[in-house]
């Protein structure tokens, strides 16, 4: 029985996230030599990512949500039986029973998870009353939404708000009905709940609290009418119940395993149920009277179960339920004893800013030294620092309030890597502590890549990348290791150092720079790393046209041809539309040009129009017509200022307090053509409603009654980051000066291809340092920064206007030097009335 020829039969019931994690653990740890594993999944899909379920409505399908490749189970040697529900565990026969057969077992792991609780309301089983838990549930919601204009979610907790987001994604007028007096009653208090309500209502979701639904009946105008305790009613076409979860413990109940009073299969530290042959993990398991409704504790249970099955030592010892969430785009964070009701004598610190809609609360021990819990609504930027204080028991600073006060009010201490204890968890996905990282370095790892290879840190969700890098750099430096920061094999300098060399020595060409400062006399061509970087530096400093003969071989193809190369070798053309303001006449010209040259047209996120599919040889003619009509280049191809997005502002909007469009045009015209380490985007909003999404930009400006608030270092894209408030109530002149300095300082000091957000995260001293430099001139360089920017502003010229007036520059814009035919391999087809690559 124990020989490898006759492995033990291990049956895993449930193929959710936790069940799947257990399979991965078994596979990775060689447990398949001992066990023959069979997994039963009731759903037809293999395990998928339930945490990101709402993305199913924003384009992700079952396959992209799946946690593994389709052949993972087969190639790993695990039998996965999807669409086969277990209906009985026959403990006396040691068999698991499904509707398709009986399967003998030696060990069982129950990973059946939970089901959504549907309150016992008359009418809760009407057609169109649904739940939100599985992909099939989502398909049902989607189908029902086709005949619906509005929908209601019953339950205002975490899952309820997720479901509300899904309904919004289906374009339904959405309402949330919550029994308690506030949203997310488990995570936030009254103040936080009120703020959350405001923010969610501002998104157009109706929030009804203290509503107990009495019955659901036929509606007059909609499919259903919900009747509440005070006989008020709400009509709706679709109802989704999301009022909490209950452990799916039916199988365990029926085979007489010990069950908790309020449900859940009782397990010990080894995840063993009252029958040691049967284990339970995840949301079905009740440990120490608690059900853990998050995925991370489920994964920890899976690891403990693995240890139990393979005679290892890992035990489950409870889990921290701290969470950082973004619900309907609103940050909510909860750490430890967030309500402060588990620690008698604890003191509360609260900060509430109704203007920016931010609420932060700390629960601190009675001696003021330890953080016991925290609550964040509207802004999670303090979460990581607070969590480190909490999880590691780090002594709080003398003025604990500084941790939650806005950073403009003075010292906002962030925990440097040196302050973290050895036990601090850096990567929670792979459970890597600072001590593990130090040990890896002591064992010979000499760089970030080496540490990642050994520890796997930051190879999971990637959320700890910046923290990991700072810890590794700090530890390497502490050991006297010089970190090689050379830009490439041609220069033993960083981008910043090259920038300084160029400025100080007044070097104006790449060949002079590599001649004087290159590594190797025989390698003088440079490469696709250093050449564009130096081209950018030269342009930032001297602003000579990038298509000049000395500079053009340095440029990436997009800069060379001043257009964006697409996958079939054609280009897209984006003229500047400053602030997104465009006259009807110019719109007509864009349409005419697109038609004439067969260009696919699309409105961009930066409020301008992108014309795709332009052939290389057509670019000069296209630009000739655009320039004739008053357009200029939009630098969409460059690492440079892209767009200044704006809302319509006080000119039209009844809420606007300043002319945001006017300011956006001023700013775009001021900084257009500035070459920088990476692209730069601005946003200007005319009031705090922030319709221009300025806080997701490198430079964000929000109008106030008294002027402008300036935000810096935001980012959208792959790793979104909210911009941080940098200065308040600036007048126009102050605003220009501050941005001049800020941008030039960024141009001077950032790495190549480093957006402002990453630059900011790597800046020693953080935002405070940046404020000292830019606002207080602590380095005494502000005059110079302003002068430099003024030079760039004064020397601006449209690169396309320059190029089409110079036959020498235009000679590159030919399909072939010896033949006028266009590239015959570019083939277009028609779709939705436009051309696209075939």
């Amino acid at each position, binding site marked *: 029985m124990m020989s490898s020829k006759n492995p033990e039969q291990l049956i895993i019931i449930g193929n959710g996230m936790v069940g799947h994690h257990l399979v991965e653990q078994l596979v990775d740890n060689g447990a398949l030599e001992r066990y023959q594993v069979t997994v039963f999944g009731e759903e037809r899909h293999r395990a998928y990512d339930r945490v990101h379920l709402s993305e199913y409505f924003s384009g992700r399908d079952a396959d992209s949500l799946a946690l593994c490749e389709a052949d993972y189970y087969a190639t790993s040697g695990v039998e996965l039986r999807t669409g086969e529900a277990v209906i009985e565990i026959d403990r006396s026969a040691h068999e698991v029973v499904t509707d398709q057969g009986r399967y003998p077992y030696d060990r069982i792991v129950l990973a059946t998870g939970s089901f959504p609780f549907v309150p016992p309301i008359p009418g809760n089983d009407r057609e169109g009353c649904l739940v939100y838990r599985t992909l099939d549930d989502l398909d049902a919601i989607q189908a029902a939404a086709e005949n619906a204009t509005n929908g209601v979610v019953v339950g205002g907790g975490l899952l309820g708000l997720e479901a509300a987001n899904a309904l919004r994604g289906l374009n339904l007028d959405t309402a949330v009905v919550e029994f308690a007096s506030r949203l997310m009653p488990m995570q936030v208090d009254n103040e936080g709940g009120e703020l959350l309500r405001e923010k969610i209502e501002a998104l157009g979701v109706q929030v009804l609290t203290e509503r107990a639904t009495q019955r659901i009946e036929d509606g007059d105008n909609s499919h259903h009418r919900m009747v509440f305790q005070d006989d008020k009613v709400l009509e709706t076409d679709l109802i989704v119940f999301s009022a909490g979860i209950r452990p799916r413990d039916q199988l365990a109940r029926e085979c007489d395993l010990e069950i908790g009073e309020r449900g859940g299969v009782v397990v010990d530290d080894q995840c063993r149920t009252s029958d040691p042959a049967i284990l339970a993990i995840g949301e079905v398991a009740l440990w120490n009277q608690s059900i853990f409704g998050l995925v991370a504790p489920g994964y920890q249970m899976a690891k403990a179960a693995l240890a139990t099955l393979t005679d290892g030592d890992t035990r489950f010892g409870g889990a921290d339920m701290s969470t950082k969430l973004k619900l309907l785009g609103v940050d909510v964070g909860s750490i430890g004893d967030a309500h402060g009701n588990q620690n008698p004598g604890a003191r509360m610190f609260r900060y509430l800013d109704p203007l920016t809609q931010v609420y932060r609360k700390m629960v601190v021990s009675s001696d003021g030294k330890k953080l016991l819990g925290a609550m964040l609504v509207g802004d999670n930027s303090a979460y990581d620092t607070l969590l480190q204080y909490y999880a590691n028991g780090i002594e709080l600073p003398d003025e604990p309030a500084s941790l939650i006060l806005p950073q403009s009010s003075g010292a906002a201490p962030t925990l440097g890597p040196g302050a973290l204890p050895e036990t601090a968890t850096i990567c929670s996905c792979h459970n890597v502590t600072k001590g593990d990282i130090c040990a890896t370095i002591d064992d010979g790892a000499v760089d970030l890549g080496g540490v990642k290879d050994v520890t796997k840190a930051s190879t999971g969700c990637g959320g700890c990348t910046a923290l990991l890098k700072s810890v590794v750099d700090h530890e390497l430096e502490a050991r006297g290791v010089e970190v090689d920061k050379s830009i490439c*094999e041609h220069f033993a300098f960083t981008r910043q150092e090259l920038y300084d060399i160029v400025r100080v020595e007044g070097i104006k060409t790449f060949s002079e720079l590599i001649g004087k400062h290159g590594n190797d006399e*025989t*390698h*003088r*061509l*440079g*490469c*696709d790393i250093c*050449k*564009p970087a130096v081209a950018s530096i030269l342009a930032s400093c001297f602003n000579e046209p990038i298509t000049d*003969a000395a500079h*053009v*071989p*340095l*440029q*990436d*193809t997009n800069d*060379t*041809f001043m257009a964006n*190369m697409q*996958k*079939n*070798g054609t280009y897209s053309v984006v003229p500047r539309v400053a602030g997104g303001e465009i006259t009807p006449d110019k719109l007509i010209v864009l349409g005419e040009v697109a038609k004439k040259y067969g260009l696919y047209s699309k409105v961009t996120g930066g409020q301008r129009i992108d014309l795709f599919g332009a052939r290389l040889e057509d670019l000069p003619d296209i630009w000739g017509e655009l320039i004739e009509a008053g357009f200029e280049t939009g630098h969409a191809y460059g690492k440079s200022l892209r767009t200044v997005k704006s809302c319509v502002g006080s000119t039209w909007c009844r809420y606007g307090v300043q002319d945001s469009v006017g300011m956006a045009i001023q700013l775009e015209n001021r900084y257009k053509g500035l070459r920088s380490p990476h692209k730069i985007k601005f946003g200007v909003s005319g009031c705090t409603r922030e319709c221009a999404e300025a806080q997701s930009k490198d430079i964000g400006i929000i109008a106030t009654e008294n002027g402008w608030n300036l935000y810096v270092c935001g980012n959208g894209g792959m790793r979104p980051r909210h911009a941080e408030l940098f200065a308040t109530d600036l007048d126009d002149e102050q605003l220009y000066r501050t941005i001049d300095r800020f941008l030039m300082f960024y141009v001077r000091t950032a790495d190549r291809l480093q957006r402002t957000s990453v630059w900011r995260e790597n800046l020693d001293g953080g935002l405070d340092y940046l404020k000292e430099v830019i606002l207080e001139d602590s380095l005494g360089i502000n005059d110079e920064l302003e002068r430099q920017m003024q030079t760039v502003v004064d020397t601006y010229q449209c690169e396309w206007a320059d190029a089409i007036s110079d036959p020498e520059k235009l*000679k*590159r814009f*030919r*399909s*072939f*030097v*010896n*033949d006028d*035919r266009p*590239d015959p*391999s570019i083939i277009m087809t028609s779709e939705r009335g436009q051309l696209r690559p075939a």
Partner: protein
Amino acid sequence: MTTTAMKKEMDTMAWQKVCTKVDLVEFSGVAAWLETADGPAQVAIFYLPGQGNELFALDHHDPFSNANVIARGIVGDLKGAAVVASPIYKQHFRLEDGQCLEDEDVKLRTWKIEFKGDEVWVEG
């Protein structure tokens, strides 16, 4: 290979003029249309004045993106070998023999190329 076959190949490989020096871009590339015995070919021509070998001709076609764009890549040297980086997915190809540095199974075709006075001639 028989003598006849060898002779035939020599007949079909003819030197042809494609352009003149002013059509080239220093330290960068241009594309040319070439009629060869094997059919038409798009050729990327790179010009590195002052280097030992000044002219290079290789496929304009990028096998990774299937677009004809190699002439529009950045020229450089890596470990001493002159290369061009594809402007689409950035793989490097050695100018000398077309070898891709990232994938040893991929190699661009190359053609013999030289100046005759100010004229640029390619054998193909």
